[in-house]
């Protein structure tokens, strides 16, 4: 039976099975929270991007001020006169309660907007402007058990479901789309919209699409100093809901990771204390301080990695549970970006190494004679 350095480290970790298992649970919770929350916020961002891309949105025009999503609707007339712009579609989005338990995204669109091109109407038809009509994404329609002809109540107003659609984006398939004017009335935003989604004219010969888009951005911002014209990808990343989701996810995850790090530090400190005499034996056998330190760090990293793997499973499972709950299905996607897994694993190992560094340093500093005398 061959013994490797890594194998030796893992044996030391696994010696105290209960303590290791409890530590793994702690790390697993921390990394699980990271994977679930950051994974959720990233998939949320990805869903926005997917929505813009599938609709063919080139630029979005929004207020420069963070969290202020109100743009005067009259801006649209001027926008349409800018030479680079083909279409300027006003839109509103908001979160609304459809039942006491279920909140969902609600969009306000014009009936003739280009954004319908990304939707596949499965039942019924498109709504008409100025009518109390609604279209439901198939995911939401399924969870609310609604079909064409039924009604749905929003903020005290009743809307007839005239269409059920399918979308590639979880943000749309779990959402409701209302006529823009009806949505303005519901949101108290008469004459206001959240944003304008722009489609640009094809770039003329000699000008690259990027230059053309940049010209459009400059023209909008010159015309309206209080507004920003931003590419779809940036809009997905900087959308207020996404920014808040990222901030909440990272904040919560960091607290969870800190707790996990304290768990590892405690476990490793206990382990080093209990194994003081063993460290003395290793030093007597010629192990250098560095090698002892590496062993303890490797044990901490192994704890972190195993905890990270546990956490990824927990986070993945949590996302799948959230994706099935009516309360969250409309904004949670189970398509977890690979980077989130990679980040989770690296973070777990890093947390392990950082948390193990002080016990490792203390273990390595032990004098062989003092360590051998330790009782």
């Amino acid at each position, binding site marked *: *039976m*061959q013994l490797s*350095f890594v194998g030796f480290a893992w044996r*030391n970790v696994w010696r105290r099975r209960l303590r290791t298992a409890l530590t793994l649970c702690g790390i697993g919770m921390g990394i699980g929270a990271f994977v679930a929350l950051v994974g959720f916020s990233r998939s949320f961002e990805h869903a926005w991007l997917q929505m813009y891309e599938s609709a063919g949105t080139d630029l979005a025009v929004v207020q420069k001020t963070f969290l202020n999503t109100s743009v005067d609707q009259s801006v649209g007339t001027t926008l349409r006169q800018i030479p680079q712009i083909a279409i300027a579609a006003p839109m509103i989005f908001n979160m609304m309660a459809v039942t006491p338990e279920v909140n969902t995204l609600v969009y306000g669109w014009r009936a003739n907007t280009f954004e319908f091109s990304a939707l596949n109407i499965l039942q019924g038809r498109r709504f008409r402007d100025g009518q109390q009509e609604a279209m439901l994404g198939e995911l939401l329609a399924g969870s609310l058990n609604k079909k064409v002809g039924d009604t749905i109540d929003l903020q005290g107003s009743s809307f007839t479901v005239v269409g059920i659609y399918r979308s590639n984006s979880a943000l749309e398939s779990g959402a409701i789309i209302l006529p823009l004017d009806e949505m303005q009335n519901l949101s108290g935003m008469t004459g206001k919209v959240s944003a304008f989604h722009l489609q640009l004219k094809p770039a003329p010969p000699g000008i690259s699409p990027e230059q053309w888009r940049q010209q459009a951005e400059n023209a909008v911002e010159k015309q309206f100093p209080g507004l920003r014209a931003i590419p779809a990808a940036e809009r997905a990343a900087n959308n207020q809901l996404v920014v808040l989701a990222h901030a909440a996810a990272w904040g919560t995850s960091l607290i969870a990771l800190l707790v996990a790090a304290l768990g590892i530090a405690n476990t490793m400190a206990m382990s080093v204390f209990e194994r003081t005499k063993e460290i003395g034996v*290793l030093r007597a*056998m010629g192990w250098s301080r560095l090698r002892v330190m590496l062993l303890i760090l490797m044990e901490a990293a192994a704890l972190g990695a195993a905890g990270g793997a546990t956490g990824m499973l927990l986070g993945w499972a949590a996302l799948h549970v959230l994706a099935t709950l009516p309360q969250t299905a409309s904004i949670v996607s189970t398509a977890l970006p690979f980077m989130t897994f990679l980040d989770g694993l690296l973070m777990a190992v890093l947390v392990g190494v950082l948390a193990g560094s002080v016990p490792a340093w203390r273990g390595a500093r032990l004098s062989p004679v003092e360590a051998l005398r330790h009782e």
Partner: protein
Amino acid sequence: MSSASPTIGTSPWILEVRDVKKSYENGTIEALRGVSLGIAQGDFLAITGASGSGKSTLLHLLGGLDTPTEGTVLFRGQPLGKSQNGVASIDLDTYRATSAGFIFQSFHLLPSLNALENVQVPMLGTGSHPHNREERARALLIELGLEHRLRQFPTQLSAGERQRVAIARSLVNEPQVLLADEPTGNLDSVNSAKILEILAQVQQRHGTTLIMVTHDLSIAATAHRHVAMRDGRICN
């Protein structure tokens, strides 16, 4: 026994201590009060003395586990631990890893590893090939009569078997000096005799210098040389 030779860098001994003193707690406890001793290659030296006489402290200095407060410990004429008079020193970790092997009274085997793995521990991280490590450990355990106990964990071994595993572990890096601290202290008379026989065989077969600390004069009598200590000094 011999008086110390005067020049650092030359020594007829494999191990030599020159006027070594060791004190603890800011000099309030003097464990060694000026010890000089030369040990020849292939020698079997027993160090005896009552508890607190300084015999274990001397063994620790000879094994590079500790450094003297004053004086010098030389291995093949080179100072251990820190350079002296321009003569390059031998790093203590390197000395313990390549030239010294330790056997303890309480065996100190690692409980999570079986016998074969325990013997490989000193070679971990040295760059040796895992296969070679295993073969070397296996050969030593077989040489010590443990061929049927290779995969047993320390708790599954008798005290005598555990000490034999510890001896194999001390030999795995082919040390030139073997240091044993009361190696039979936790064994019954039958196992004690067997371990002493093994140590004597190892010392003869491998040409290893064996230094053994014991309080048992009958055991010390089996050594080639005997140094008695009292109050931090050699007294014979």
